[in-house]
Protein backbone atom coordinates (compact mmCIF):
# COMPACT_ATOMS: atom_id res chain seq x y z
CA UNK A 1 0.00 0.00 0.00
CA UNK A 2 3.02 2.25 0.21
CA UNK A 3 5.05 3.67 -2.64
CA UNK A 4 8.21 3.14 -0.65
CA UNK A 5 10.33 0.12 -1.67
CA UNK A 6 9.58 -2.93 0.42
CA UNK A 7 11.90 -3.80 3.27
CA UNK A 8 10.21 -7.15 3.67
CA UNK A 9 8.30 -8.96 0.99
CA UNK A 10 6.66 -12.30 1.74
CA UNK A 11 5.27 -14.16 -1.27
CA UNK A 12 3.21 -17.33 -1.19
CA UNK A 13 4.64 -18.48 2.14
CA UNK A 14 3.82 -22.07 3.11
CA UNK A 15 4.75 -23.80 6.37
CA UNK A 16 3.63 -27.29 7.28
CA UNK A 17 4.03 -29.25 10.49
CA UNK A 18 3.04 -32.81 9.54
CA UNK A 19 -0.66 -32.75 8.68
CA UNK A 20 -1.07 -29.17 9.85
CA UNK A 21 -0.82 -26.52 7.19
CA UNK A 22 0.21 -23.81 9.63
CA UNK A 23 0.82 -21.07 7.07
CA UNK A 24 -0.99 -21.32 3.76
CA UNK A 25 -0.06 -19.12 0.81
CA UNK A 26 0.58 -15.99 2.84
CA UNK A 27 1.77 -12.82 1.08
CA UNK A 28 2.38 -9.31 2.38
CA UNK A 29 4.92 -6.52 2.22
CA UNK A 30 6.35 -4.20 4.82
CA UNK A 31 7.88 -0.89 3.71
CA UNK A 32 10.91 0.63 5.38
CA UNK A 33 10.10 2.17 8.74
CA UNK A 34 8.69 3.89 10.58
CA UNK A 35 5.89 1.47 9.79
CA UNK A 36 3.89 -1.16 11.64
CA UNK A 37 2.03 -4.16 10.24
CA UNK A 38 -0.10 -6.04 12.76
CA UNK A 39 -0.75 -9.75 12.37
CA UNK A 40 -3.87 -10.61 14.32
CA UNK A 41 -5.77 -13.81 14.84
CA UNK A 42 -6.58 -16.40 17.48
CA UNK A 43 -4.53 -19.38 18.66
CA UNK A 44 -3.63 -21.63 15.76
CA UNK A 45 -4.18 -18.96 13.13
CA UNK A 46 -0.54 -19.13 12.04
CA UNK A 47 0.46 -15.61 13.06
CA UNK A 48 3.37 -16.66 15.25
CA UNK A 49 4.59 -19.23 12.72
CA UNK A 50 4.53 -16.54 10.02
CA UNK A 51 6.70 -14.32 12.24
CA UNK A 52 9.06 -17.18 12.97
CA UNK A 53 9.31 -18.04 9.28
CA UNK A 54 10.39 -14.46 8.55
CA UNK A 55 13.21 -15.07 11.06
CA UNK A 56 13.86 -18.44 9.38
CA UNK A 57 12.93 -20.12 12.64
CA UNK A 58 10.23 -22.24 11.01
CA UNK A 59 10.58 -24.80 8.20
CA UNK A 60 9.64 -22.97 5.00
CA UNK A 61 7.94 -25.26 2.50
CA UNK A 62 7.16 -22.92 -0.35
CA UNK A 63 7.34 -19.25 -1.08
CA UNK A 64 9.94 -16.56 -0.77
CA UNK A 65 10.87 -14.04 1.91
CA UNK A 66 12.72 -11.04 0.55
CA UNK A 67 14.52 -8.83 3.03
CA UNK A 68 15.84 -5.72 1.32
CA UNK A 69 15.39 -7.51 -2.00
CA UNK A 70 17.29 -10.71 -1.12
CA UNK A 71 15.49 -14.01 -0.71
CA UNK A 72 16.50 -15.19 2.76
CA UNK A 73 15.02 -18.65 2.21
CA UNK A 74 17.99 -19.38 -0.04
CA UNK A 75 20.74 -17.80 2.05
CA UNK A 76 23.35 -19.81 3.91
CA UNK A 77 26.25 -19.14 6.27
CA UNK A 78 27.71 -15.65 6.37
CA UNK A 79 25.05 -14.22 4.08
CA UNK A 80 22.27 -15.56 6.27
CA UNK A 81 23.98 -14.09 9.32
CA UNK A 82 24.18 -10.69 7.63
CA UNK A 83 20.51 -10.74 6.68
CA UNK A 84 19.56 -11.84 10.19
CA UNK A 85 21.10 -8.68 11.57
CA UNK A 86 18.51 -6.67 9.64
CA UNK A 87 15.56 -8.42 11.27
CA UNK A 88 15.39 -9.14 15.00
CA UNK A 89 12.70 -10.67 17.15
CA UNK A 90 11.23 -9.93 20.59
CA UNK A 91 9.18 -12.71 22.17
CA UNK A 92 6.24 -12.68 24.56
CA UNK A 93 8.26 -14.17 27.38
CA UNK A 94 11.53 -12.32 27.96
CA UNK A 95 12.76 -15.18 30.12
CA UNK A 96 12.80 -17.39 27.05
CA UNK A 97 15.36 -15.06 25.43
CA UNK A 98 17.55 -14.21 28.39
CA UNK A 99 20.04 -16.69 29.82
CA UNK A 100 19.39 -16.66 33.58
CA UNK A 101 23.12 -17.02 34.30
CA UNK A 102 24.22 -14.19 32.05
CA UNK A 103 24.34 -10.60 33.23
CA UNK A 104 22.19 -8.19 31.24
CA UNK A 105 25.27 -6.36 29.92
CA UNK A 106 26.86 -9.55 28.60
CA UNK A 107 23.61 -10.66 26.95
CA UNK A 108 23.39 -7.40 25.03
CA UNK A 109 27.12 -7.13 24.37
CA UNK A 110 27.27 -10.67 23.05
CA UNK A 111 24.94 -9.77 20.19
CA UNK A 112 27.13 -6.77 19.24
CA UNK A 113 30.29 -8.87 19.34
CA UNK A 114 28.74 -11.68 17.31
CA UNK A 115 28.08 -9.25 14.50
CA UNK A 116 31.36 -7.32 15.08
CA UNK A 117 29.49 -4.06 15.50
CA UNK A 118 31.89 -2.57 18.02
CA UNK A 119 35.36 -3.26 19.34
CA UNK A 120 35.34 -5.03 22.69
CA UNK A 121 36.51 -2.01 24.69
CA UNK A 122 33.54 0.06 23.49
CA UNK A 123 30.92 -2.54 24.27
CA UNK A 124 30.32 -1.42 27.86
CA UNK A 125 29.60 2.14 26.83
CA UNK A 126 27.35 1.10 23.93
CA UNK A 127 25.39 -1.25 26.20
CA UNK A 128 24.85 1.60 28.68
CA UNK A 129 23.49 3.87 25.94
CA UNK A 130 21.17 1.13 24.69
CA UNK A 131 19.83 0.50 28.17
CA UNK A 132 19.04 4.20 28.52
CA UNK A 133 17.40 4.11 25.12
CA UNK A 134 14.93 1.45 26.34
CA UNK A 135 14.22 3.29 29.58
CA UNK A 136 16.63 1.49 31.91
CA UNK A 137 19.81 2.68 33.66
CA UNK A 138 23.37 1.78 32.57
CA UNK A 139 23.76 0.18 36.02
CA UNK A 140 21.23 -2.48 35.02
CA UNK A 141 23.99 -4.05 32.89
CA UNK A 142 25.44 -5.67 36.01
CA UNK A 143 22.17 -7.29 37.01
CA UNK A 144 20.99 -10.82 36.33
CA UNK A 145 17.55 -11.25 34.69
CA UNK A 146 15.93 -12.50 37.93
CA UNK A 147 16.89 -9.22 39.62
CA UNK A 148 14.61 -7.33 37.24
CA UNK A 149 10.82 -7.09 36.97
CA UNK A 150 8.94 -8.59 34.02
CA UNK A 151 8.63 -5.19 32.34
CA UNK A 152 12.33 -4.46 32.85
CA UNK A 153 13.24 -7.87 31.41
CA UNK A 154 11.14 -7.12 28.34
CA UNK A 155 13.04 -3.81 27.99
CA UNK A 156 16.28 -5.79 28.09
CA UNK A 157 14.92 -8.06 25.34
CA UNK A 158 14.31 -4.92 23.25
CA UNK A 159 17.82 -3.64 23.98
CA UNK A 160 19.29 -6.95 22.91
CA UNK A 161 17.28 -6.97 19.68
CA UNK A 162 18.31 -3.36 18.95
CA UNK A 163 21.98 -4.04 19.76
CA UNK A 164 22.64 -5.23 16.21
CA UNK A 165 20.96 -2.16 14.67
CA UNK A 166 18.16 -3.96 12.85
CA UNK A 167 15.89 -2.21 10.39
CA UNK A 168 12.98 -4.34 11.31
CA UNK A 169 11.60 -6.14 14.35
CA UNK A 170 9.27 -9.09 14.66
CA UNK A 171 7.34 -8.46 17.88
CA UNK A 172 5.56 -11.63 19.00
CA UNK A 173 2.93 -10.68 21.62
CA UNK A 174 5.50 -8.40 23.30
CA UNK A 175 3.14 -7.20 26.03
CA UNK A 176 0.79 -10.16 26.53
CA UNK A 177 2.54 -11.50 29.62
CA UNK A 178 2.70 -8.10 31.30
CA UNK A 179 0.39 -6.28 33.69
CA UNK A 180 -1.73 -3.62 32.03
CA UNK A 181 0.15 -0.61 33.46
CA UNK A 182 3.47 -2.19 32.39
CA UNK A 183 1.98 -3.02 29.00
CA UNK A 184 1.07 0.64 28.51
CA UNK A 185 4.69 1.65 29.20
CA UNK A 186 6.10 -0.95 26.76
CA UNK A 187 3.66 0.22 24.07
CA UNK A 188 4.96 3.77 24.57
CA UNK A 189 8.52 2.42 24.34
CA UNK A 190 7.75 0.76 21.00
CA UNK A 191 6.17 3.97 19.67
CA UNK A 192 9.26 5.92 20.75
CA UNK A 193 11.80 3.48 19.30
CA UNK A 194 9.90 3.37 16.04
CA UNK A 195 10.19 7.15 15.73
CA UNK A 196 13.82 7.47 16.82
CA UNK A 197 15.16 4.52 14.86
CA UNK A 198 12.77 4.60 11.93
CA UNK A 199 11.92 0.98 12.62
CA UNK A 200 9.54 -1.21 10.71
CA UNK A 201 7.87 -4.00 12.62
CA UNK A 202 5.61 -6.97 12.27
CA UNK A 203 3.50 -6.91 15.44
CA UNK A 204 1.94 -10.27 16.21
CA UNK A 205 -0.92 -9.87 18.65
CA UNK A 206 -4.28 -11.25 19.64
CA UNK A 207 -5.19 -7.80 20.96
CA UNK A 208 -6.84 -5.66 18.28
CA UNK A 209 -6.55 -2.49 20.38
CA UNK A 210 -2.77 -2.91 20.71
CA UNK A 211 -2.47 -3.37 16.95
CA UNK A 212 -4.61 -0.30 16.38
CA UNK A 213 -2.33 1.80 18.58
CA UNK A 214 0.90 0.78 16.87
CA UNK A 215 0.18 -0.32 13.29
CA UNK A 216 -0.74 1.54 10.11
CA UNK A 217 -1.78 -1.74 8.55
CA UNK A 218 -3.25 -4.97 9.85
CA UNK A 219 -3.63 -8.48 8.48
CA UNK A 220 -6.17 -10.87 9.99
CA UNK A 221 -5.26 -14.56 9.90
CA UNK A 222 -7.56 -17.55 10.19
CA UNK A 223 -6.35 -21.14 10.05
CA UNK A 224 -3.11 -20.36 8.23
CA UNK A 225 -4.39 -17.83 5.74
CA UNK A 226 -4.63 -14.06 5.63
CA UNK A 227 -8.35 -13.44 5.28
CA UNK A 228 -8.20 -9.65 5.25
CA UNK A 229 -5.49 -6.99 5.10
CA UNK A 230 -5.64 -3.22 4.93
CA UNK A 231 -5.20 0.06 6.79
CA UNK A 232 -5.91 -0.74 10.45
CA UNK A 233 -8.46 1.99 11.07
CA UNK A 234 -10.49 1.18 7.94
CA UNK A 235 -10.29 -2.56 8.55
CA UNK A 236 -11.50 -2.27 12.15
CA UNK A 237 -14.13 0.40 11.61
CA UNK A 238 -15.54 -1.23 8.50
CA UNK A 239 -14.47 -4.87 8.12
CA UNK A 240 -14.94 -6.65 4.81
CA UNK A 241 -14.50 -10.18 6.18
CA UNK A 242 -17.09 -11.67 8.54
CA UNK A 243 -14.31 -13.07 10.75
CA UNK A 244 -12.80 -9.60 11.23
CA UNK A 245 -16.27 -8.35 12.17
CA UNK A 246 -16.69 -11.21 14.63
CA UNK A 247 -13.29 -10.67 16.23
CA UNK A 248 -14.01 -6.99 16.65
CA UNK A 249 -17.41 -7.63 18.21
CA UNK A 250 -15.93 -10.12 20.69
CA UNK A 251 -13.51 -7.55 22.15
CA UNK A 252 -14.79 -6.42 25.56
CA UNK A 253 -15.06 -2.70 26.19
CA UNK A 254 -14.97 -0.40 29.16
CA UNK A 255 -17.86 2.03 29.22
CA UNK A 256 -20.19 0.51 26.67
CA UNK A 257 -22.11 -2.46 27.89
CA UNK A 258 -22.66 -4.21 24.59
CA UNK A 259 -23.73 -7.69 25.69
CA UNK A 260 -23.40 -8.60 22.04
CA UNK A 261 -23.86 -12.28 21.34
CA UNK A 262 -20.66 -13.65 19.89
CA UNK A 263 -21.01 -13.74 16.16
CA UNK A 264 -18.96 -16.87 15.72
CA UNK A 265 -20.32 -19.92 17.47
CA UNK A 266 -18.10 -22.82 18.44
CA UNK A 267 -14.38 -23.27 18.69
CA UNK A 268 -11.96 -22.72 15.83
CA UNK A 269 -11.72 -25.84 13.64
CA UNK A 270 -9.08 -28.54 13.92
CA UNK A 271 -6.07 -27.36 11.93
CA UNK A 272 -5.19 -30.93 10.92
CA UNK A 273 -8.59 -31.36 9.26
CA UNK A 274 -9.52 -27.94 7.89
CA UNK A 275 -13.07 -27.50 6.60
CA UNK A 276 -13.60 -27.61 2.83
CA UNK A 277 -13.86 -24.41 0.83
CA UNK A 278 -13.51 -21.34 3.00
CA UNK A 279 -12.09 -22.55 6.34
CA UNK A 280 -14.34 -20.10 8.18
CA UNK A 281 -17.62 -21.33 6.67
CA UNK A 282 -18.75 -23.59 9.59
CA UNK A 283 -18.76 -20.56 11.93
CA UNK A 284 -19.78 -17.94 9.39
CA UNK A 285 -23.26 -16.40 9.61
CA UNK A 286 -23.15 -15.58 5.89
CA UNK A 287 -21.97 -18.93 4.51
CA UNK A 288 -23.58 -20.09 1.27
CA UNK A 289 -23.00 -23.23 -0.83
CA UNK A 290 -20.15 -21.65 -2.72
CA UNK A 291 -18.29 -21.07 0.57
CA UNK A 292 -18.39 -24.78 1.38
CA UNK A 293 -16.76 -25.82 -1.90
CA UNK A 294 -14.59 -22.99 -3.20
CA UNK A 295 -11.62 -21.48 -1.35
CA UNK A 296 -12.02 -17.71 -1.75
CA UNK A 297 -9.03 -16.07 -3.45
CA UNK A 298 -7.34 -13.03 -1.93
CA UNK A 299 -8.60 -10.07 -4.00
CA UNK A 300 -8.64 -6.27 -3.80
CA UNK A 301 -11.80 -4.81 -2.22
CA UNK A 302 -10.96 -1.14 -1.62
CA UNK A 303 -7.95 1.16 -1.74
CA UNK A 304 -5.06 -0.68 -0.13
CA UNK A 305 -7.33 -3.46 1.05
CA UNK A 306 -7.52 -7.14 0.14
CA UNK A 307 -9.92 -9.80 1.35
CA UNK A 308 -10.57 -13.52 0.90
CA UNK A 309 -14.36 -13.81 1.09
CA UNK A 310 -16.99 -14.54 -1.56
CA UNK A 311 -19.41 -12.13 0.11
CA UNK A 312 -17.01 -9.34 1.07
CA UNK A 313 -18.99 -6.63 -0.77
CA UNK A 314 -22.04 -7.37 1.36
CA UNK A 315 -20.01 -7.42 4.59
CA UNK A 316 -18.43 -4.09 3.70
CA UNK A 317 -21.79 -2.54 2.80
CA UNK A 318 -23.33 -3.87 6.03
CA UNK A 319 -20.74 -2.01 8.14
Amino acid at each position, binding site marked *: MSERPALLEVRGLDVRFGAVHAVNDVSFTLPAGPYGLGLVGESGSGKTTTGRAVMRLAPIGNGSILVDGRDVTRLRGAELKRSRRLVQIVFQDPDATLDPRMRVGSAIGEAMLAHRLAPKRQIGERVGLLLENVGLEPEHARRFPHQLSGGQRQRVAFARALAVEPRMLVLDEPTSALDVTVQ*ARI*LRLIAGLRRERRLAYLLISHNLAVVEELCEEAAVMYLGRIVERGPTSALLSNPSHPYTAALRSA*VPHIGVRTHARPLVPGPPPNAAEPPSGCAFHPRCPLAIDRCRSEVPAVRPIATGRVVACHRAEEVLAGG
Partner: protein
Amino acid sequence: MIPGQPRLEIRELTVAFGARVVSDISHLAIAPGEIVGLAGESGSGKSMTATAILGLGRTAGASVSGSVALNGRELIGLPERELRHVRGRQIAMIFQSPVGSFNPVFKVGDVFERALRLHGASKRAAREQAASALEEVLLSPNLLDRFPHQLSGGQAQRVAIALALALRSEVLLADEPTSALDVTVQAEILDLLRSVRKESNMSVLFISHDLAVIAELCDRIAVMQRGKIVETGLARRVLTEPSDPYTRELVASVPRLGTGMVAG
Protein backbone atom coordinates in the same frame (compact mmCIF):
# COMPACT_ATOMS: atom_id res chain seq x y z
CA MET B 1 -31.41 -17.40 55.00
CA ILE B 2 -32.28 -13.89 56.16
CA PRO B 3 -33.60 -11.56 53.41
CA GLY B 4 -31.05 -8.95 52.48
CA GLN B 5 -28.23 -11.02 53.93
CA PRO B 6 -25.20 -11.20 51.66
CA ARG B 7 -24.47 -14.64 50.34
CA LEU B 8 -20.77 -14.17 50.98
CA GLU B 9 -19.38 -11.56 53.32
CA ILE B 10 -15.74 -10.88 54.12
CA ARG B 11 -14.77 -8.76 57.13
CA GLU B 12 -11.32 -7.77 58.32
CA LEU B 13 -9.75 -10.64 56.40
CA THR B 14 -5.97 -10.77 56.63
CA VAL B 15 -3.86 -13.30 54.76
CA ALA B 16 -0.14 -13.21 55.50
CA PHE B 17 3.00 -15.15 54.77
CA GLY B 18 5.01 -14.47 57.91
CA ALA B 19 5.23 -10.71 58.27
CA ARG B 20 4.19 -10.13 54.66
CA VAL B 21 0.48 -9.31 54.41
CA VAL B 22 -0.74 -10.27 50.92
CA SER B 23 -4.44 -9.59 51.43
CA ASP B 24 -6.03 -7.23 53.91
CA ILE B 25 -9.71 -6.69 53.16
CA SER B 26 -11.86 -4.73 55.55
CA HIS B 27 -15.17 -5.50 53.85
CA LEU B 28 -16.45 -7.21 50.71
CA ALA B 29 -19.94 -8.64 50.27
CA ILE B 30 -21.62 -10.48 47.42
CA ALA B 31 -25.40 -10.69 47.20
CA PRO B 32 -27.24 -13.74 45.85
CA GLY B 33 -27.04 -13.73 42.05
CA GLU B 34 -24.53 -10.91 42.03
CA ILE B 35 -21.33 -10.87 39.99
CA VAL B 36 -18.53 -8.95 41.68
CA GLY B 37 -15.26 -8.32 39.90
CA LEU B 38 -12.02 -8.41 41.88
CA ALA B 39 -9.52 -6.49 39.78
CA GLY B 40 -5.81 -5.97 40.18
CA GLU B 41 -2.39 -6.63 38.76
CA SER B 42 -0.03 -9.52 39.53
CA GLY B 43 0.76 -9.68 43.21
CA SER B 44 -2.18 -7.52 44.26
CA GLY B 45 -3.52 -10.35 46.43
CA LYS B 46 -6.67 -11.16 44.49
CA SER B 47 -5.97 -14.87 44.07
CA MET B 48 -4.85 -15.33 47.69
CA THR B 49 -8.16 -13.77 48.73
CA ALA B 50 -9.99 -16.52 46.84
CA THR B 51 -7.72 -19.15 48.34
CA ALA B 52 -8.58 -17.88 51.83
CA ILE B 53 -12.32 -17.85 51.06
CA LEU B 54 -12.05 -21.54 50.18
CA GLY B 55 -10.34 -22.21 53.49
CA LEU B 56 -7.13 -23.21 51.74
CA GLY B 57 -5.00 -20.35 53.07
CA ARG B 58 -3.27 -22.50 55.64
CA THR B 59 -2.69 -25.27 53.07
CA ALA B 60 -0.95 -22.64 50.96
CA GLY B 61 1.28 -21.80 53.92
CA ALA B 62 -0.40 -18.54 54.90
CA SER B 63 -1.89 -17.41 58.19
CA VAL B 64 -5.51 -16.27 57.89
CA SER B 65 -7.51 -14.19 60.32
CA GLY B 66 -10.81 -12.34 60.16
CA SER B 67 -14.21 -13.43 58.95
CA VAL B 68 -15.60 -15.11 55.84
CA ALA B 69 -19.30 -15.82 56.20
CA LEU B 70 -21.44 -17.86 53.82
CA ASN B 71 -25.14 -17.12 54.31
CA GLY B 72 -24.21 -15.83 57.73
CA ARG B 73 -22.23 -18.93 58.72
CA GLU B 74 -18.60 -18.32 59.67
CA LEU B 75 -16.15 -20.39 57.62
CA ILE B 76 -12.88 -19.31 59.22
CA GLY B 77 -11.97 -21.82 61.88
CA LEU B 78 -14.34 -24.55 60.63
CA PRO B 79 -12.82 -28.00 60.91
CA GLU B 80 -11.45 -29.40 57.63
CA ARG B 81 -14.16 -32.09 57.58
CA GLU B 82 -16.89 -29.45 57.40
CA LEU B 83 -14.94 -27.20 55.06
CA ARG B 84 -14.67 -30.05 52.60
CA HIS B 85 -18.44 -30.05 52.40
CA VAL B 86 -18.52 -26.31 51.79
CA ARG B 87 -15.92 -26.53 49.05
CA GLY B 88 -17.42 -27.71 45.80
CA ARG B 89 -20.89 -28.14 47.26
CA GLN B 90 -21.47 -24.52 48.29
CA ILE B 91 -18.43 -22.70 46.93
CA ALA B 92 -16.94 -23.84 43.63
CA MET B 93 -13.84 -22.53 41.96
CA ILE B 94 -12.69 -22.36 38.36
CA PHE B 95 -9.20 -21.45 37.23
CA GLN B 96 -7.26 -19.77 34.44
CA SER B 97 -5.99 -23.04 33.00
CA PRO B 98 -9.18 -24.99 32.38
CA VAL B 99 -7.55 -28.18 31.11
CA GLY B 100 -4.89 -28.03 33.82
CA SER B 101 -7.47 -27.90 36.60
CA PHE B 102 -8.62 -31.44 35.80
CA ASN B 103 -6.79 -34.58 36.79
CA PRO B 104 -5.56 -35.89 33.42
CA VAL B 105 -6.22 -39.57 34.21
CA PHE B 106 -9.95 -39.16 34.90
CA LYS B 107 -12.56 -38.88 32.18
CA VAL B 108 -14.97 -35.96 32.48
CA GLY B 109 -17.73 -38.37 33.56
CA ASP B 110 -15.56 -39.78 36.36
CA VAL B 111 -14.86 -36.28 37.67
CA PHE B 112 -18.59 -35.56 37.89
CA GLU B 113 -19.35 -38.95 39.40
CA ARG B 114 -16.72 -38.65 42.13
CA ALA B 115 -17.78 -35.12 43.04
CA LEU B 116 -21.52 -35.83 43.03
CA ARG B 117 -21.21 -39.10 44.92
CA LEU B 118 -19.00 -37.44 47.51
CA HIS B 119 -21.92 -35.12 48.08
CA GLY B 120 -24.43 -37.95 48.35
CA ALA B 121 -25.76 -38.81 44.89
CA SER B 122 -26.17 -42.40 43.70
CA LYS B 123 -24.05 -43.58 40.77
CA ARG B 124 -26.98 -43.45 38.40
CA ALA B 125 -28.25 -40.08 39.59
CA ALA B 126 -24.71 -38.72 39.31
CA ARG B 127 -24.54 -39.75 35.65
CA GLU B 128 -27.89 -38.14 34.90
CA GLN B 129 -27.07 -34.93 36.73
CA ALA B 130 -23.74 -34.74 34.91
CA ALA B 131 -25.38 -35.13 31.50
CA SER B 132 -27.98 -32.46 32.21
CA ALA B 133 -25.33 -30.09 33.60
CA LEU B 134 -23.35 -30.44 30.38
CA GLU B 135 -26.48 -29.63 28.41
CA GLU B 136 -26.99 -26.53 30.53
CA VAL B 137 -23.59 -25.23 29.42
CA LEU B 138 -24.41 -26.18 25.80
CA LEU B 139 -22.08 -29.16 25.60
CA SER B 140 -22.91 -32.64 24.37
CA PRO B 141 -23.19 -35.32 27.10
CA ASN B 142 -20.85 -37.35 24.87
CA LEU B 143 -18.05 -35.31 26.40
CA LEU B 144 -18.46 -37.34 29.61
CA ASP B 145 -16.39 -40.06 27.94
CA ARG B 146 -13.54 -37.74 27.05
CA PHE B 147 -10.30 -37.12 28.88
CA PRO B 148 -9.45 -33.49 29.77
CA HIS B 149 -6.74 -33.29 27.10
CA GLN B 150 -9.36 -34.14 24.49
CA LEU B 151 -11.21 -30.90 25.25
CA SER B 152 -10.52 -27.45 23.87
CA GLY B 153 -9.83 -24.69 26.40
CA GLY B 154 -13.33 -23.31 26.00
CA GLN B 155 -14.92 -26.75 26.39
CA ALA B 156 -12.90 -27.49 29.52
CA GLN B 157 -13.95 -24.17 31.08
CA ARG B 158 -17.59 -25.01 30.28
CA VAL B 159 -17.16 -28.41 31.93
CA ALA B 160 -15.74 -26.72 35.06
CA ILE B 161 -18.76 -24.40 35.17
CA ALA B 162 -21.08 -27.37 34.59
CA LEU B 163 -19.53 -29.10 37.59
CA ALA B 164 -20.40 -26.11 39.78
CA LEU B 165 -23.94 -26.20 38.38
CA ALA B 166 -24.33 -29.93 38.99
CA LEU B 167 -23.28 -29.45 42.61
CA ARG B 168 -25.73 -26.54 42.93
CA SER B 169 -22.93 -24.34 44.23
CA GLU B 170 -24.10 -21.01 45.60
CA VAL B 171 -20.86 -19.16 45.05
CA LEU B 172 -18.49 -19.47 42.12
CA LEU B 173 -14.96 -18.18 42.57
CA ALA B 174 -13.64 -17.62 39.05
CA ASP B 175 -9.90 -16.87 38.95
CA GLU B 176 -9.02 -15.37 35.54
CA PRO B 177 -11.31 -17.94 33.87
CA THR B 178 -11.07 -16.41 30.40
CA SER B 179 -7.52 -15.08 30.41
CA ALA B 180 -6.10 -18.10 28.58
CA LEU B 181 -8.91 -18.22 26.02
CA ASP B 182 -9.22 -16.65 22.60
CA VAL B 183 -11.39 -13.58 22.44
CA THR B 184 -14.30 -15.25 20.59
CA VAL B 185 -14.27 -18.14 23.09
CA GLN B 186 -14.00 -15.66 25.96
CA ALA B 187 -17.14 -13.90 24.70
CA GLU B 188 -18.98 -17.24 24.81
CA ILE B 189 -17.85 -18.02 28.37
CA LEU B 190 -18.90 -14.54 29.56
CA ASP B 191 -22.28 -15.15 27.96
CA LEU B 192 -22.52 -18.47 29.73
CA LEU B 193 -21.70 -16.92 33.13
CA ARG B 194 -24.41 -14.31 32.57
CA SER B 195 -27.00 -16.99 31.83
CA VAL B 196 -25.85 -19.20 34.74
CA ARG B 197 -26.30 -16.29 37.12
CA LYS B 198 -29.75 -15.65 35.71
CA GLU B 199 -30.91 -19.28 35.72
CA SER B 200 -29.43 -20.48 39.00
CA ASN B 201 -28.96 -17.25 40.97
CA MET B 202 -25.34 -18.22 41.59
CA SER B 203 -23.10 -15.51 43.09
CA VAL B 204 -19.82 -15.02 41.29
CA LEU B 205 -16.54 -13.52 42.46
CA PHE B 206 -14.82 -12.85 39.15
CA ILE B 207 -11.09 -12.33 39.62
CA SER B 208 -9.43 -10.69 36.65
CA HIS B 209 -6.68 -8.34 35.56
CA ASP B 210 -8.83 -7.43 32.54
CA LEU B 211 -10.90 -4.34 33.31
CA ALA B 212 -12.79 -4.49 30.03
CA VAL B 213 -14.00 -8.01 30.79
CA ILE B 214 -15.07 -6.89 34.27
CA ALA B 215 -16.87 -3.88 32.75
CA GLU B 216 -18.91 -6.18 30.52
CA LEU B 217 -19.70 -8.90 33.03
CA CYS B 218 -19.75 -7.58 36.57
CA ASP B 219 -22.33 -5.63 38.57
CA ARG B 220 -19.81 -4.30 41.06
CA ILE B 221 -16.04 -4.10 41.15
CA ALA B 222 -13.41 -4.02 43.88
CA VAL B 223 -9.97 -2.85 42.77
CA MET B 224 -7.06 -4.32 44.70
CA GLN B 225 -3.57 -2.93 45.06
CA ARG B 226 -0.92 -4.39 47.38
CA GLY B 227 -3.47 -6.47 49.24
CA LYS B 228 -6.00 -3.73 49.88
CA ILE B 229 -9.20 -2.74 48.15
CA VAL B 230 -8.52 0.81 46.97
CA GLU B 231 -11.85 1.45 45.29
CA THR B 232 -15.19 -0.30 45.10
CA GLY B 233 -18.57 0.45 43.57
CA LEU B 234 -20.75 -0.19 40.56
CA ALA B 235 -18.45 -1.59 37.85
CA ARG B 236 -19.68 0.79 35.19
CA ARG B 237 -19.26 3.83 37.41
CA VAL B 238 -15.84 2.92 38.81
CA LEU B 239 -14.47 2.12 35.36
CA THR B 240 -15.83 5.21 33.63
CA GLU B 241 -15.28 7.67 36.49
CA PRO B 242 -12.54 6.20 38.67
CA SER B 243 -11.81 8.29 41.75
CA ASP B 244 -8.77 6.49 43.20
CA PRO B 245 -5.47 7.46 41.50
CA TYR B 246 -4.42 3.82 41.06
CA THR B 247 -7.76 2.87 39.49
CA ARG B 248 -7.37 5.88 37.21
CA GLU B 249 -3.93 4.67 36.09
CA LEU B 250 -5.24 1.14 35.51
CA VAL B 251 -8.18 2.37 33.45
CA ALA B 252 -5.99 4.72 31.43
CA SER B 253 -3.58 1.86 30.65
CA VAL B 254 -6.16 -0.31 28.91
CA PRO B 255 -5.69 -0.09 25.15
CA ARG B 256 -9.01 0.68 23.51
CA LEU B 257 -10.42 0.09 20.08
CA GLY B 258 -11.45 3.13 18.11
CA THR B 259 -8.88 5.54 19.52
CA GLY B 260 -6.55 5.33 16.53
CA MET B 261 -2.76 5.21 16.37
CA VAL B 262 -0.71 6.64 19.20
CA ALA B 263 2.58 6.00 17.39
CA GLY B 264 3.55 8.88 15.15
